[in-house]
């Protein structure tokens, strides 16, 4: 009981809402170490998320990833029309002392990039699942989503990594 109450109050403090805004109530779960994992998304083991909307999929990095990266000061993104492959790097984020590759969870063609990130890269920190989205992709192999982690498995993955 105490754990559920703690998780709930922490979630409210984090002010997470479900992306897409169709659901009446926020859909989230809290991983053990304060990072949030949204329902309705799929995740890669390298901490990117993908929101499948049929013809287009939106991609970004998870709250776990942005927390570990620290303050993002620059984001390098591909141009629309670029082909991406599952597990391959499509761009990078720069935090204070590091450049870190970002990898695409699915294969396809980039149809849109988040231009806001050039002026406000910190959106990745403050809103990793919404305003901090990075690219939109037209998937070439929709079945690739099956190989990704659902929110529960991704939460477990993060907890196992943080437990070391």
């Amino acid at each position, binding site marked *: 009981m105490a754990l559920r109450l703690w998780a709930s109050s922490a979630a409210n403090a984090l002010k997470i809402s479900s992306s897409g805004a169709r659901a009446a109530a926020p859909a989230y779960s809290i991983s053990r170490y304060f990072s949030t994992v949204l329902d309705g998304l799929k995740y890669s083991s*390298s901490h990117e998320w993908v929101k499948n909307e049929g013809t287009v999929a939106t991609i970004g990095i998870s709250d776990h990833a942005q927390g570990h990266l*620290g303050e993002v*000061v620059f984001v390098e993104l591909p*141009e629309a029309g670029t082909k991406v492959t599952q597990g391959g*790097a499509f761009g990078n984020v720069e935090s*204070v*002392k*590091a*450049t*870190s590759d970002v990898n695409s969870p699915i294969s396809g063609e980039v149809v849109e990039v988040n231009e806001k990130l050039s002026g406000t890269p910190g959106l990745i920190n403050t809103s990793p699942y919404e305003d901090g989205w990075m690219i939109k992709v037209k998937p070439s192999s929709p079945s690739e989503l099956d190989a990704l982690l659902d929110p529960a498995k991704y939460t477990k993955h993060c907890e196992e990594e943080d437990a070391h």
Partner: protein
Amino acid sequence: MTARLLPPLSWVSPVSELVEVEPVLRDNVPVVRRFSGGGTVIVDQGTVFVTFICNKTAVTGLQPFPRDIMSWTGQLYGKVFHGFGEFQLRENDYAFSHRKFGGNAQSITKDRWVHHTSFLWDYDVKNMNYLKNPKRAPEYRLARNHTDFLCRMNEYMPSRSVFTEGLIAALSEHFTIQQTGPETALSHDNDFEPSTKLLSPQDLQDIISSKESSTVQRVPGWPQS
């Protein structure tokens, strides 16, 4: 060997905000724009480089994120410098007390990471004048100039070999150590194109002529197909 400058490849800050371009051009100081993050450093005879090039599984339980890697190196170097000074990992710098002697830069991909450090075994104060005070500075710097902010390792350790031996001893707790030559670190991949770039005198002249844009530019060759 004269000094050379090593700013990061990132387009976060233009070169003109990192270095004093006119004196650099006048004195023929080579400027090499490197691929990793971090700040601009001076490289001369007093600089010692230590670079970790690791597969993501090289250190058990270490997640390939900047803070995690930085923390692990801080613990490693804590053992190396134990007894020689009040070693601290201050934000992202190695310091004795509040004075920096080592700056770090990292590059992380899906399966590997690089963490490299420029250690100031010694430095020529004159060369620091080629650097501008960075706009983005750690809080503990407190607006100090280079001379008040930095210190030299040779003021704390008797010799470079003591440092090297201490580092090898600390690494031996994690790895099997084998001495080799620099040629083993070179790529034999004919398709590999390094993104690290030596800026030409024309590049520097263009910067002085204000042709360098402060807006975001795509790095040539990115993304790699």
